[in-house]
C-alpha cells in the first residue's frame, strides 16, 4: 500500500529499487506473492502489485501476476463446499453469487481480496480484453453484488448468516463501491450503497475507513468535499498510505483505475 501511494505521488523508479527487489524475492514461479520473508505461502497480496505502474512492475513479473490472478478460484466453488452448505441448511445452491477470490489458497472467497482482484482486472483489461479476463471479471462483480448487506453496505463478505443479517463496515463498503465503479450495478442497489457509505462517513473516525469511503464515493461521482482531513488520526503506515491514495483519487489520479 505504501508503494502504491508513493508511486501515485510520482516518486522516481530509483526510489523504489529496494522495495522492488524485496517484492521480486516474494514472487513465486507461478506469479503469486507471499506476504513476508518468513511466510512461504502465496496469498492474495500479489493482487496489489497489479496497481503499480508498468515502469515499476512490468514485463514477466507483471505477466506472471496476472496469470496467477486469473487462475485463482476459491474453494467455495467446489462440490465439497456446496455439500457442506447443504448440510448446514442452505436452501438451494447459490448459482447467482458469482465467484470471488480468497485470502489464502484452499479457502472461500471474501470481500476484500475479491474487490482488489476486480479492480486489478478492470484496470488491466483496458489493454487486454480477452474472454478469460471478461468472464472472470464478471464473476467477481457478481460475487460483490451478491454480498451486499441488507443495510446497503458491505462487510467482510458474510451478509447473512443463519437467518441473521450482518451489518456493513465503513472500509469494506468503500472498497466494494470502488470495485463496482462502472460495473452496471442495479440503480436501486447502488443508491442504497451510496446512502450507506454516506451514513458511515458521518460516524467513521478511522483514517482507513474514511479514505476508502472517500474513494468509493468518488468512484461514483458522489463527493463534494474530502472526508479525510487534517484532524484524521493516522496510526500506521497503512493509515498514511490510504490517506494519500484517497487524496490522489480526489485529485483525479487514482492508482486503482
Amino acid at each position, binding site marked *: 500500500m505504501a508503494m502504491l501511494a508513493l508511486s501515485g505521488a510520482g516518486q522516481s523508479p530509483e526510489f523504489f529499487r529496494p522495495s522492488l527487489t524485496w517484492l521480486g524475492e516474494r514472487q513465486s514461479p507461478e506469479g503469486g506473492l507471499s506476504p513476508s520473508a518468513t511466510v512461504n*505461502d502465496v496469498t492474495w497480496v500479489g493482487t496489489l502489485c497489479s496497481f503499480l505502474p508498468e515502469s515499476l512492475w512490468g514485463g514477466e513479473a507483471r505477466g506472471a501476476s496476472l496469470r496467477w490472478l486469473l487462475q485463482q478460484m476459491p474453494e467455495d466453488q467446489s462440490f465439497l463446499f456446496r455439500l457442506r452448505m447443504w448440510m448446514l441448511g442452505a*436452501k*438451494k445452491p447459490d448459482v447467482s453469487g458469482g465467484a470471488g477470490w480468497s*485470502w489464502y489458497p484452499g*479457502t472461500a472467497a471474501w470481500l476484500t481480496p475479491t474487490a482488489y482482484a476486480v479492480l486489478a482486472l478492470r484496470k488491466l483489461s483496458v489493454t487486454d480484453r480477452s474472454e478469460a479476463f471478461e468472464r472472470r471479471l464478471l464473476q467477481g462483480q457478481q460475487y460483490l453484488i451478491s454480498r451486499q448487506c441488507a443495510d446497503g453496505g458491505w462487510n467482510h463478505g458474510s451478509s447473512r448468516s*443463519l437467518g*441473521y443479517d450482518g*451489518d456493513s463496515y465503513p472500509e469494506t463498503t468503500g472498497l466494494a463501491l470502488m470495485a463496482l465503479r462502472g460495473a452496471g450495478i442495479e440503480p436501486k442497489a447502488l443508491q442504497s450503497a451510496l446512502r450507506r457509505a454516506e451514513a458511515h462517513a458521518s460516524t467513521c473516525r*478511522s483514517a482507513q475507513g474514511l479514505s476508502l469511503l472517500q474513494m468509493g464515493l468518488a468512484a461514483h461521482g458522489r463527493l463534494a468535499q474530502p472526508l479525510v482531513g487534517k484532524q484524521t488520526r493516522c496510526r500506521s503506515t497503512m493509515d498514511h498510505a490510504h490517506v494519500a491514495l484517497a487524496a490522489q483519487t480526489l485529485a483525479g489520479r487514482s492508482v486503482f483505475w
Partner: protein
Amino acid sequence: MNSAHIQTRRSLLAATGALAAAGCGTTSPPQVKQKVSILRAPSYNADLLDTLRRGIAAHALDVKGKRVVLKPNLVEVDASVPINTHPVFVHAVAELFTSLGAASVRIAEGPGHRRNTWELAEVAGYFDAFPDFEQRFTDLNLDEVRRVPIPDPHSELSELYLGQTVLGCDLLVSLPKLKTHHWVGATLSMKNFFGLVPGGVYGWPKNVLHWAGIDASIADIHKLLPPHFAIVDGIEGMEGNGPIQGSPRHAGVIVMGSYLPAVDATCCRIMKIDPQRIGHLTLAAGAAGLAEEYITQAGETIPSVQTEFALLPVFDFLRLKATG
C-alpha cells in the same frame, strides 16, 4: 424445503461433530485435578481489582519478572450488546499483573473480521481505558510470524504461522467473554485463541481454520501455546446467536485457571451447557478430562452462580440436563 428439515440437517451435523469429537478424543485426562476458581463480580466497578487479586492469589500465579501478554476478545462493536471483553476488565488485569511484578504487560489481539484493529479498539473503548494503549498493544494480524509445526494435529493442518509477540512471551493470558457461539456452542478461553492466528497471512476471517475444522483447529492451537492462564469476563455475557448477534446476559462471575479445558468446562456448566458435548473441549481434554471430578472447584460453587444462557435451537442437544 422447510425450515424444520434445515434445522434437522444442521442439528444432525452439529451433534455428529460433537459426538465424534467426544468419541475420538485421544487426549488423556490430566494426571492431577485442575483447579478452577469462580468469583462473584456483580459489575465492572472499583472492587474488580480486589476480586481479581484474590483469585490470582488462590492460584499462586507467579508473574514476577515475566513478559505477560493479555489476549482479550475483540471482535466487532455494537453498543447494544457486550461482544468484547470489557476494557475495564482488561485494564484491571493489566494493573494487577503490573503490581505483582511482571516485567511487562502487553495487550495483543488479531480480530477476525475487521482489518483495522486500531479503530476497533478505539470504538470498543480500549483507548479510554488505557492512556498508553498505542504503546501497549500489538496487532497480532500484522505481527512478525514464525511457522510452528502442530504435533499430532486433530485438524487437517500440519503447521500454523503465529506471531512472535505470543511465541516469545513468558505467560499468555486468555481474557475471553462468556458467550454462546453459533458454530461451536460456546466461545471461551480456548476459542479466544483464534485471535492468535495472523490475518496478515490467512486473511479476515481466518478461513483456513474453518476449512480445517473449527473444533479441531481450536484444539490444535491449544497445543502450540506458551505457558498460559485464563481469566474469563463473565460479568456481562452473551446468549443466543453469539458471538456477535446474541443478547446480553448478566452472569456476574469471573472464572480463572491454568488448564483451559477445565476453565471452559466450568464456564459451560455455569451457562447450563454440557461441556462434554462441546467438540473442541473433548478433543483437547477427552470427555473424561472434563468431568467434574477432575476439576477442583474453588471460590463459589457452580449451582450458586449458575445462569442459564439461551441457546440457538440447533444447539438444544448441548443443554446440561442436571448439575453435578
